[in-house]
């Protein structure tokens, strides 16, 4: 049934439909609405049996999820930004131990400077921690991805992170078709753990492994995650039949077939990009878009096949790898190695800066003219940067960049001015 719902609530209700059994959570914007809604559902008994554990930190949240999953419970949590960083050590343990925890990441920037708004700095910082990473374009996709995530996680015994753009999706109301309990139950059977801590049959998990087998354990972690490249499309097709609509898969191309220039991106910005593609197509520009839904494992062969005929690839990234530039574009270049397409990095939408159709249209115009620099910061306020650089040249004790630049643009930051 179609409903007009907030993204966070749609995800919470989907997680309940997936019969999560243990939910340890610590609040952090913009994820909070999700676990608030779940805690209310546990309290009213709408979600039962389920234990909601108020923990004292994200480190504890992931640790409790690990413990719960190891005893055979379907474990779920959600976090964002600094919260993800705080649970970083436990993230590696969850994946290293092969525990199929599902976590929603409400994508948010990482400080300093502190910033509560959306970008992909948080999830990208943990891209190599052994978790499968899926990125949702819409709230419908975010909801459906959670059903896929539990099944994928449990079939592979690996944790899955569903990334959805903070505020842009989590706080957006749009129409969503949530499945019935019966539909979810038919797709997602009860959790059958591959390993389980059971007092009746005592075992240990988490052994110390030395040089004699560490490489082999890691090799298997990689081989196992790579299986998702086959399994995710299969499960997506199966879920699509159950739900009667398309579900995520690994990639989604939009008007890519005869495109000269294709924008590659992850997450909710794809909608804005698709609108821009339509506008440029109406003017005769052969442009398209490619959405990467599964970033880990990275679908190298599929990206290569999708972009084989393309002259220019513009990778629009919501995260910055300081010291090199793009992250997604490194992966895309890897996929296209030996091919002739030019790959451009565009850093956009950092810390919640809106990515507009107007800016995207201009950017693609420049790209079509072969005038795009290898790396661009979309809508960079060059004058603001120049003024601060001038200050640092003029005086040794020029002060903190953030406060100086806020003062320049007339925003009063905390503290004396």
């Amino acid at each position, binding site marked *: 049934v179609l409903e007009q719902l907030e993204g966070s609530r749609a995800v919470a209700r989907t997680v309940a439909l997936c019969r999560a059994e243990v939910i340890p959570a610590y609040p952090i*914007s913009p994820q909070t609405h999700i676990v608030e809604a779940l805690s209310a559902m546990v309290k009213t008994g709408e979600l039962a049996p389920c234990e909601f554990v108020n923990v004292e930190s994200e480190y504890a949240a992931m640790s409790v999820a690990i413990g719960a999953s190891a005893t055979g419970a379907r474990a779920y949590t959600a976090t964002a930004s600094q919260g993800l960083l705080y649970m970083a050590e436990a993230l590696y343990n969850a994946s290293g131990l092969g525990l199929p925890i599902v976590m929603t990441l409400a994508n948010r920037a990482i400080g300093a400077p502190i910033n509560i708004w959306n970008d992909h700095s948080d999830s990208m910082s943990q891209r190599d921690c052994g978790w499968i990473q899926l990125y949702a374009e819409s709230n419908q996709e975010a909801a459906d991805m959670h059903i896929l995530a539990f099944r994928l996680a449990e079939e592979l015994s690996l944790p899955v992170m569903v990334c959805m753009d903070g*505020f*842009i999706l989590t706080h957006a*109301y749009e129409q969503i078709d949530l499945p019935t309990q019966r539909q979810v139950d038919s797709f997602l059977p009860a959790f059958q753990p591959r390993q389980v801590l059971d007092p009746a049959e005592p075992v240990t998990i988490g052994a110390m492994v030395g040089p004699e087998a560490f490489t082999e354990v890691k090799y298997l972690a990689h081989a196992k995650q790579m299986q998702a490249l086959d399994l995710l499309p299969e499960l997506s097709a199966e879920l699509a039949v159950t739900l009667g609509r398309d579900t995520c898969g690994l990639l989604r191309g939009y008007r890519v077939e005869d495109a000269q220039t294709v924008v590659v991106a992850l997450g909710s910005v794809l*909608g804005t990009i698709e609108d821009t593609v339509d506008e440029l197509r109406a003017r005769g520009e052969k442009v398209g878009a490619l959405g990467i839904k599964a970033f880990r494992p990275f679908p190298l062969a599929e990206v290569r096949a999708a972009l084989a005929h393309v002259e220019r690839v513009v990778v629009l990234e919501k995260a910055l790898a300081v010291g090199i530039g793009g992250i997604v574009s490194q992966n895309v270049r890897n996929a296209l190695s030996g091919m002739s397409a030019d790959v451009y990095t565009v850093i956009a939408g950092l810390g919640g800066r809106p990515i507009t*159709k107007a800016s995207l249209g201009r950017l693609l115009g420049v790209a079509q003219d072969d005038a795009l620099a290898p790396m661009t910061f979309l809508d960079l306020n060059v004058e603001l940067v120049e003024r601060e650089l001038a200050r640092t040249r003029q005086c040794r004790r020029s002060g903190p960049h953030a406060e100086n630049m806020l003062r320049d643009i007339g925003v009063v930051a905390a503290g004396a001015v």
Partner: protein
Amino acid sequence: VFQVRIHGRGGQGAVTAAELLSLAAFARGRHAQAFPSFGSERTGAPVLAFCRIDEREIRTREPVSQPDALIVLDPTLLHQVDVFGGLRPDGYVLINSVRSFAQLGLAEWVGGFARERLLTVPASDLAREHAGQMRPNAALLGALAALTAVVSLDSVVHAIQMRFSGRLAVANAAAAQACFAFVEREREALSHA
């Protein structure tokens, strides 16, 4: 697509107003997308909320920079925020104030726009009278229905009943209805002026 931008202060219900508007449009089978833009939540801090209404799927996620309609929940924002930024020349404006545009210092400004589409409405007063509280959001949605017909009063009331229950639903619906009637009377007066 019809795009609405709502300016308010934390606690006035700007975000809820956008949500209610999207519910009202959805109830009539249309696509609607509502989303907020706030900083660290603080009561009284400027808050923005947006709503797009369309007959087809809405894909874009950018903030509304060229609104078809503008709702200002607190007139003191006029001095703090560029509330009119990007407003289309044929755009609608509703400001929650008992004062006129001239009294708000906007006599010259209104000249550049379609005068019959601009109104100040005493939404806080109507909310206090009918809902027993100062939160003007529901009342202003009644006003929007009267001014633009982008949603009907019935669907606004329906959205309020979906979102709230009990006394709160009744009171907010009454405030919306009262503000709808106020705008109808004002437009009548304007058309005879």
